[in-house]
């Protein structure tokens, strides 16, 4: 369905800043800003000229310390936040030449519901905690235009079964679930429309080791079975080592290094990446 030689998602010069900037920080070349905020006007430069490509059936890892812009990148891609500038193209969407960041809000809704699945670090952002788990999954299907209760219930049961939610708890609200179960419901929800691209933002943070392993196995299995492209954000290099084919390293809103995951982990070039890899327990 997708051309494996061409990227499914292309990001060009994505910038996201919080604040208007001042003459001092605007005149400085990005390389000269050592931190991602301006000490004069306090503008935060969360993402600075982020460019990368994600290929079909590939898992691309994004690592970096807290505040390096990883989650902001994900939120921009999922239209939770507006970008300051930049371009993004999806293979097959409007002949692959429509910048999705400048689309209308209705088109963005279409992209969210049909082309992206998102798993947030905090399940409270991705789920309606007072609605049933089946309802949470139906929400995504309703957004994509389904109006058939039988179909939506069947699909939800299938997906929740796949992520090991017991059938007798499917009508229960996620607020009654453990953190791991909530993450699994989020994953099921994200997969409900068979999106070609899955965005995973720190999915294992806050989970204990055994639950982490379950969630990681599940993600691997989904990728193997469904051949979905995934963008996995984590500050945990072990997660990236297990999941990602390629990895990009972010620092202060910029990509400082990218390459094959093994290459990054075995032979890091940038001093920050070296420090990160050496601090791996």
């Amino acid at each position: 369905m997708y051309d494996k030689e061409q990227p499914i998602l292309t990001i060009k010069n994505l910038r996201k800043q919080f604040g208007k900037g001042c003459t001092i920080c605007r005149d400085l070349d990005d390389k000269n800003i050592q931190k991602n905020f301006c000490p004069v006007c306090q503008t935060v430069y969360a993402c600075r000229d982020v460019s990368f490509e994600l290929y079909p059936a590939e898992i691309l890892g994004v690592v970096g310390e807290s505040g390096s812009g990883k989650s902001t990148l994900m939120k921009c891609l999922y239209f939770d936040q507006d970008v300051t500038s930049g371009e993004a193209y999806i293979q097959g969407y409007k002949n692959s030449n429509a910048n999705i960041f400048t689309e209308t809000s209705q088109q963005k809704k279409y992209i969210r519901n049909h082309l992206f699945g998102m798993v947030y670090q905090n399940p409270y952002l991705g789920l309606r905690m007072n609605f049933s788990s089946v309802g949470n999954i139906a929400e995504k299907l309703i957004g994509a235009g389904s109006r058939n209760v039988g179909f939506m219930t069947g699909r939800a049961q299938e997906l929740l079964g796949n992520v090991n939610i017991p059938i007798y708890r499917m009508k229960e609200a996620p607020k009654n679930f453990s953190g791991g179960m909530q993450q699994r419901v989020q994953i099921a929800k994200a997969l409900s429309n068979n999106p070609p691209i899955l965005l995973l933002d720190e999915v294992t943070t806050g989970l204990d080791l055994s639950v982490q392993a379950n969630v990681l196995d599940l993600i691997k299995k989904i990728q193997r079975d469904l051949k979905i492209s995934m963008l996995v954000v984590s500050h945990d290099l072990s997660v990236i080592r297990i999941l990602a084919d390629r990895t990009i390293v972010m620092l202060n809103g910029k990509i400082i290094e990218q390459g094959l995951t093994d290459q990054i982990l075995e032979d890091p070039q940038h001093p920050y990446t070296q420090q990160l890899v050496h601090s791996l327990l």
Partner: protein
Amino acid sequence: MKSYNFAFFDEGSKREIRRATLKAIALPGYQVPFASREMPIARGWGTGGLQLTLSLVGKDDKIKVIDQGADESVNAVNIKKLIKNTTDVEETEFTEEATLIQSRHRIPEIELREDQILVLQVPIPEPLREIEPSEYITKRLHADKEYSGIWLMLFERIMKHGSMATGADHPVLVNNRYVMAPSPIPRFDNHKLNNSKALILLGAGREKKIYAVPPYTEVQSLAFEDYPFEVENMDDKVCRLCGARGVFMDELIDEETKEKYYQCNDVSYCLQRLNNEIAN
């Protein structure tokens, strides 16, 4: 009450409300904000409907005010008194005689005509309010025609109760554009909104919104493909007083025998049938 202006309001206020009303008619189902006035009745007791009525009433009008189908309820009587005292227009209990009908929770049983206006009192005009507390966001959702939330709410009710289980205020899609809360009329009355010959205006005083269903406008009750919209079944219920069938009934308990019985909810309709003024 000579000290009051005709229809209570000053002319500027009437004009402002009429302007909002015209905009509402031009955009069927769209909630038009208006400067809801302080009224001599408490907010939540029909001030939205009352403001619409007072802004529209003319000297030749005949008004009818009903509350849950009854002309004699305290709320209806007080609203009627205020209108009467400040306008001196004629009152009526007969639906077909009235030119302006203000109602809470019901659409009369007798089909309305083109020369009539129905004003409905609305407590919560925003159909998305249950799932989205922010007015700013609901406005955006309406603008984007993004009604997933309301469908999800109906879906959840099916999951919980096995049916959509909206006792009243079942959301409707007006003119294939805006989803609208039809005020808490029973589902039984929803079909009366569709292609209604009369102009239907809805006013929410507390929430400061006016919206409208102009005559001959398509109004669809939201329903899933495999869970069609169903109204309350009144076919097997017979009014104990007038013997009517197929109209909206109140369920009552006989204090002595403890037996259930039914009575027409629309009191004037029942009375007219009893007086043989409407064909049985």
